[in-house]
């Protein structure tokens, strides 16, 4: 890609970018949120037309006017946000747009067979008949990869594929990427996780504010240098924290049972307690009841059986409003679905749980001036980058959206803060900031329940780690004495002793 410039109203997302990717390599793209990585790849995939610059493939100049052209040129893309049609089966999703028909009808049988073959060839385990809405995130990712392979892509673009994966799934994905290279493919890999870059990539290009900073060989660099290149300053990976001083029991969960809409016990006799002044991390593979546990505690899902106590008071019959008032803060795992009203201003979002209380309202009337004042303070304190507090939440970048949520939840000073995947998809700078805030909250003597698929994050932040498996806590570990390997085994359902 030579001299690519892509402008959006008011911003140059890509500014004279030169990117050379060699055949057969895994080339990483690194940059802060909003640096322009996705934009560049969308240009390569033909979704955007650049204002300037040209694209050459095998030294031949090409014009990519749309995804179809990109496909023909052997370019496939796995998008940052999954592009799966939820009610469709895996097979339908894969063949969409490149269907092979026999006498006018789609030949599902043949397609299924082909997909099975492809997935065996590259070690991608998928069930061709499953519905996209019912498969795990990891499998959705593999379906996205299969989509590109099915179209015979040679150059694969992975836009932040690991942001939503569990460590096991990331391992698998990295294995898959290695297989693909062996089969002669070329990969462009976007990620915020430096460790992944170090482990699989050959070269890395760092982008900052739409400009290329540098392209380096992975062998010649280290994580600290990359982080500095990308953010433009030193970044510390360590979380500085004191020893925890656990106090009173804040949250107590006893033999909790939660049923999902199919009537399956997704949380099944779970026991848990979190004390004031400590961070309890919950480690586990996705789908073992983490989400349901949180939704049950926060009153978003009915409790089938068992007890949830907050500061010794039973809360599992209360509604969400009462639970919030009892002192629960919640950073939800899906910021777009739960965390924000995207069409509200930042201001309005900042008082999502407190709008009805003084000073934000008096009697029946909202006091928007107070709301704005409050929002302005939070925006400043939590470094939310936005032109004003009146900006719609929709137009913020993911990182800043997350910061806004964290500001809101922590500033309410809850006795129990539940943080679910608090740093998903964020760049290292933002992660550093958020981690500090969570620890500060703990140090104020509050309880924190952290749910994350990032073992790193869990190990760094937690004072105690509970491992969840099939809806139960199957073991507790001390982050200071355990290793990622040990944790991984536990998460796979093996008890400590067997391991």
């Amino acid at each position, binding site marked *: 890609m030579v001299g690519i410039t892509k402008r959006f109203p008011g911003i140059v997302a890509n500014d004279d970018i030169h990117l050379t990717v060699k055949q057969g390599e895994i080339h990483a793209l690194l940059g802060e949120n909003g640096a322009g990585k996705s934009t560049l790849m*969308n240009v390569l995939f033909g979704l955007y037309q650049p204002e300037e610059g040209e694209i050459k493939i095998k030294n031949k100049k090409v014009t990519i006017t749309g*995804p*179809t052209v990109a496909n023909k040129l052997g370019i496939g893309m796995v998008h940052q*946000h999954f592009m*799966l049609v*939820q009610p469709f089966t895996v097979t339908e999703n894969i063949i*969409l747009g*490149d269907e092979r028909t026999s006498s006018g*009808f789609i030949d599902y049988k043949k397609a299924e067979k082909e997909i099975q073959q492809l997935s065996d060839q590259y070690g991608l385990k998928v069930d061709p008949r499953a519905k996209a809405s019912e498969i795990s995130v990891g499998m959705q990712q593999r379906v996205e990869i299969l989509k590109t392979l099915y179209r015979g892509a040679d150059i694969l673009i992975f836009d932040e594929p690991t942001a939503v994966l569990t460590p096991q799934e990331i391992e698998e994905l990295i294995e898959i990427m290695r297989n693909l290279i062996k089969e002669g493919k070329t990969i462009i890999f976007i990620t915020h996780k430096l460790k992944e870059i170090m482990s699989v990539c050959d070269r890395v290009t760092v982008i900052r504010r739409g400009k290329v900073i540098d392209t380096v060989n992975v062998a010649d660099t280290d994580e600290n240098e990359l982080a500095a290149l990308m953010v433009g300053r030193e970044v510390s990976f360590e979380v500085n924290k004191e020893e925890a001083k656990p106090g009173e029991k804040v949250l107590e969960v006893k033999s909790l049972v939660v049923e999902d809409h199919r009537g399956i016990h997704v949380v099944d006799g779970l026991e848990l307690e979190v004390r004031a002044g400590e961070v309890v991390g919950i480690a586990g593979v996705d789908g073992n009841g983490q989400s349901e546990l949180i939704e049950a505690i926060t009153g978003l899902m009915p409790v089938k059986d068992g007890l949830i106590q907050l500061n010794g008071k039973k809360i599992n019959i209360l509604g969400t409003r009462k639970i919030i008032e009892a002192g629960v803060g919640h950073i939800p795992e899906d910021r777009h679905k739960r965390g924000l009203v995207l069409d509200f201003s930042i201001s309005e979002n900042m008082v999502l749980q407190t709008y009805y209380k003084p000073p934000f309202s008096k009697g029946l009337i909202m006091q928007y001036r107070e709301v704005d004042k409050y929002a302005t303070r939070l925006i400043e304190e939590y470094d939310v980058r936005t032109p004003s507090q009146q900006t719609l939440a929709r137009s913020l970048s993911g990182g800043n959206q997350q910061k806004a949520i964290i500001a809101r939840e922590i500033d309410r000073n809850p006795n129990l803060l539940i943080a679910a995947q608090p740093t998903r998809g964020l760049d290292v700078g933002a992660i550093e900031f958020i981690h500090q805030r969570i620890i500060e909250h703990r140090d104020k003597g509050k309880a924190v329940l952290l749910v994350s698929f990032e073992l790193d994050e869990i190990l760094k932040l937690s004072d105690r780690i509970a491992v969840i498996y099939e809806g139960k806590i199957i073991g507790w570990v001390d982050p200071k004495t355990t290793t990622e390997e040990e944790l991984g085994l536990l998460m796979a359902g093996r008890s400590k002793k067997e391991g």
Partner: protein
Amino acid sequence: MLTNILQTTVLYSTPLILAAMGGLFSERSGVVNIGLEGLMTMGAFIAAITSLSTGNPWIGLIAAMIAGVILALPHAVAAITFKADQVVIGVAINFLALGLSVYLVKFMYDAGQTPTVQKKLEAVAIPGLSKIPILGPSIFQASPFTYIAIVVVILSYIILYKTTFGMRLRAVGEHPHAAETAGISVIAMRYTAVLISGALAAIGGACLSISIGSEFNQGTVAGQGFIALAALIFGKWNPFGALGAATFFGFAVALSLMGQLIGLSKYVPSEVLSMLPYVLTIIALASFVGRAVAPSALGKPFEKGSR
């Protein structure tokens, strides 16, 4: 009596089914269509005047389809290209169709209705099948429109679920960006769907003016487009579902008419009997049909590159 009920059911539901199938295509592609009423009106009008001028109702039928497509075009342009609110555009289509057709009738005939269409598409018995007791006289001795409706439902099902076109159409209605990245032109698919919608709804209207009735006036469609829309939603945006819902509605009307004919109106006012189909529909929805999931992208204009 059963035969009577079934005959009325078939008679009543045929135009509803056709219009609902029209709505199906449009809405499955993600474009809300509350303009069904207007499309039916235009279909009824054009079918009547072409049948009158050519003396051949089949030409009337085809002309109605073409008119439906032409009327659906501004709908498509406004809703897809200009990303206007789809509901408003549907309302505008209804205004346009009713205003234009009634105006033209007055202009052409100096009357509030077209003259009577003499050569119509009346019931045709299918040899053999029409002799089956009960079912025969109701289903196999019906208007060509009824057969067309049944064929359209089956074809819609096949197209939607078995062909490339249908799969792409559904993808566009559920997740247009996914479709776009798969190399499908969302715009082209939606245009096609809205135009098909116009053709089918117009046939539904034509059924009213050149088969069941024999003229067009401003009361010819009178709300049936909205009932068809309801049937589409009631049938959960599925061809057979919509067929079932439209038939259910026709059946309820048949029951209410039958109620009068057996003398129930001595005890129950006939207005109350006429309410029956609407009340039954609500009861059915509230008690067992329940939640219907609309195509996810329904009503949302598609913008390239956004998410």
